[in-house]
């Protein structure tokens, strides 16, 4: 490392302080394969730092390089230029210039560009190279470039740019030696020469583009043939009739599979948890401790963990739609409908990802340039049915909705009700959007520009990493919040102690709290136990399932083998059950979402309005539904 004092642009300078790790920023235009590269480099040694409490909003991970050293990689939002106009671009801009709080200026940059569209992507090289940081220019999609008959002279391009260049395929892992060499600071390429091509004035886009074209042609860049497969697939997916039809079929298939494919795995998990609980319980002689572990912890946490397979299946589907490039087409198809509610197609992508979780969805609204559109999208995102609602819905549906066929073999009644709940959330969202856009957030129709990425096969690697990441988040929550709530509920259910005997659950502290709130929720058809669940679910929606698991487990320990479903069937009316689902469809029962809305809108005003509005709507609608069902049946 010492022999290259200022000699190689490709070498990382030795760390100023030995303890500090090098930071490498990954920069690139949208759809250039940044995340694939990041996953390839870091593997499982990464975290999505996107939950409140964790301050950084981008993905960070460790890369192991030669000699056992570690380098920190940061995955920055995709940008076309370094002009900070959207929030996304501001994050990238600030990180690269060392203006991001709590994050030192990166030591080096990995600039990733799509080699199949190099002439245009090279435009971003001008501002990035002019930062003066050691930069490796990575030309991604090498396999695509080759198979479509394109090519580039890497050595020549490197001379032109004055920076090392690597031609890789991030999805297949080809050509990564050079990337790791760069990260290890081991490439002793040509001595630092000024780039042969003078960098252009970066504010002038036409000049930058001409510069890029010039660099490309000097680097003997041969543009590949157009992506025929993408054109062919678009002829189907964007067909005026087939396109929307396919979209509907995809959505229905998703809901059917959530019930049918996840069921055997869920049964397996259920059996495993029950037998594990019985086994652990048999090891504990003390009856009080036994009850805490079996009734409190295993019933409480276990009843939530069971839903992990379903949530993973949902994330798998959304991941496939996103990675394959179909989501951009869906946004295109949806744009006109979205425009009718005062929003734009770009809002569609955050809204669709809100079906997984509202927190990353709200952060994804940063790509929307129009401030009012962005706030409107943030405010309606929690109405989309997030995966935390799934445990509540599935529990209630399995307990109260008969397993009948609705549309022949295509759609069962249970899947139909689930689909209905998803549509209900969507309707509430567009109603709210309309309301907001015609009153407080009125703005003129904003422009919609969306690049259509070529279709690509989703890789097992990136899908797998998504699922592992999601499982971690889910299990962490089950192991912390839900575990804590389960223990607190169990303790409160056993207080106050009379003559060394725990009270009847209705007389316990939990019972007293429950009975205190019961008058407020009785009109909705809920009993006091649901009331406790509603209180605990303010932390996160799925906590109610854990809470009910604990409460019913304590109340009747013999019933735990029969399960929570049967207990609910005996304790709740159909009206109350449906009202509970409607309540969860609308209410904003999620502290993480409140926190992220506060951060993204920059104050308490919007989260408070949102919380009050959603809870009010939930209460009124649950009341009406309960009354209607009680009258009819």
């Amino acid at each position, binding site marked *: 490392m010492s022999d290259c004092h200022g000699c190689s642009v490709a070498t990382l300078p030795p760390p100023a302080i030995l303890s500090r790790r090098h930071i490498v920023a990954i920069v690139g235009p949208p759809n250039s394969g940044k995340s694939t590269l990041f996953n390839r480099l870091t593997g499982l040694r990464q975290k999505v730092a996107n939950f409140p409490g964790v301050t950084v909003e981008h993905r960070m991970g460790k890369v192991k390089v030669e000699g056992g050293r570690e380098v920190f990689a940061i995955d920055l939002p995709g940008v076309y230029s370094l*002009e900070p106009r959207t929030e996304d671009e501001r994050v990238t801009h600030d990180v690269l210039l060392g203006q991001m709080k709590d994050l030192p200026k990166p030591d080096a940059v990995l600039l990733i560009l799509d080699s199949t569209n190099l002439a*245009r992507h090279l435009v971003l090289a001008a501002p990035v190279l002019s930062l003066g940081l050691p930069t490796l220019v990575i030309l991604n999609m090498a396999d695509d470039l080759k198979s479509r008959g394109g090519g580039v002279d890497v050595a020549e391009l490197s001379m032109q740019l004055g920076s090392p260049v690597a031609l890789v395929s991030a999805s297949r892992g080809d050509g990564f030696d050079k990337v790791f060499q760069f990260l290890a600071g081991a490439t002793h390429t040509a001595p630092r020469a000024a780039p042969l091509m003078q960098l252009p004035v970066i504010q002038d886009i*036409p000049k930058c*583009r001409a510069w890029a074209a010039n660099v490309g042609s000097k680097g003997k860049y041969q543009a590949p043939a157009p992506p025929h497969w*993408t054109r062919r697939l678009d002829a189907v997916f964007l067909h005026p009739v087939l396109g929307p039809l396919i979209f509907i079929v995809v959505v229905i298939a998703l809901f059917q599979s959530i019930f049918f494919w996840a069921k055997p795995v869920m049964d397996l998990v259920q059996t495993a948890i029950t037998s594990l609980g019985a086994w652990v319980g048999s090891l504990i002689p003390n009856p009080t401790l036994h009850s805490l572990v079996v009734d409190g912890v295993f019933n409480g946490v276990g009843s939530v963990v069971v839903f992990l397979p379903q949530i993973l299946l949902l994330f798998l589907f959304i991941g496939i739609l996103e990675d394959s490039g179909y989501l951009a087409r869906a946004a*295109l198809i949806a744009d006109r409908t979205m425009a009718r509610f005062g929003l734009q197609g770009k809002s569609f992508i955050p809204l669709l990802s809100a079906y997984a979780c509202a927190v990353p969805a709200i952060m994804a609204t940063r790509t929307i340039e129009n401030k009012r559109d962005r706030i409107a999208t943030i405010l309606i995102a929690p109405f989309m049915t997030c995966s935390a609602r799934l445990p509540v819905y599935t529990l209630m549906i399995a307990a109260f909705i008969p397993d009948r066929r609705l549309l022949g073999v295509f759609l069962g009644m249970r899947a139909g009700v689930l689909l209905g709940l998803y549509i209900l959330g969507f309707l509430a969202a567009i109603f709210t959007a309309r309301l907001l856009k015609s009153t407080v957030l009125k703005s003129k129709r904003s422009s919609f520009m969306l*690049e*259509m990425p070529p279709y690509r096969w989703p890789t097992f690697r990136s899908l797998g990493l998504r699922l592992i990441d999601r499982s971690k988040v889910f299990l962490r929550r089950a192991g912390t919040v839900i575990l804590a709530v389960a223990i607190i509920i169990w303790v409160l259910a056993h207080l106050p102690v009379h003559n060394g005997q725990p009270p009847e659950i209705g007389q316990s502290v939990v019972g007293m709290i429950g009975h205190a709130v019961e008058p407020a929720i009785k009109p909705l058809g809920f009993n006091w136990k649901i009331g406790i669940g509603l209180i605990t679910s303010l932390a996160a929606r799925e906590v109610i399932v854990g809470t009910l698991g604990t409460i019913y487990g304590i109340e009747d320990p013999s019933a735990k083998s029969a399960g929570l479903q049967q207990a609910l069937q005996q304790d709740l009316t159909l009206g109350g059950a449906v009202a509970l689902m409607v309540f969860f469809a609308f209410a904003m029962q999620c502290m993480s979402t409140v926190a992220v809305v506060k951060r993204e809108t920059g104050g308490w005003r919007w989260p408070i309005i949102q919380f009050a509005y959603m809870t009010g709507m939930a209460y009124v609608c649950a009341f009406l539904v309960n009354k209607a069902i009680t009258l009819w049946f």
Partner: protein
Amino acid sequence: MVYSGIGVRDQLQLAIEIMVLQEFDFAAFQLDTWFEMQMAVKKARQEKHHSPANTGAANLMELKHGESGILDRLDLPEDDARRLMELGFLPGHAITPGHSAPGGDPRVFRVDGSEVALRRETARRLILRPENSNNNAAKES
């Protein structure tokens, strides 16, 4: 335009013959051939009506399927114009319309190696070079 003049029945027969002859990569080939035939037929039909070059469309919205035009200027606010230029809509570049959402709005436009969807009102503000100046429309200085 090998398949341009043939009817549906001939198309089918041809497809079957090709499928029978082709033993490898059966599924992929079948679909490939089908699309190529479709596109060839479509293109032939369009070419009867308009020439493939710029036919006097004043802006992107007026470009018909199969036509292309050279962008002259962006009649839009600074911010939107910059963003579009970053996406490839630079004066001097050729633009070809592609597929669209049901109803024709928004539409995908091919420009500078990528495909970008634009709403109707934006496409209308992207002004094309008039036909007669096509000769001096050298590609981007």
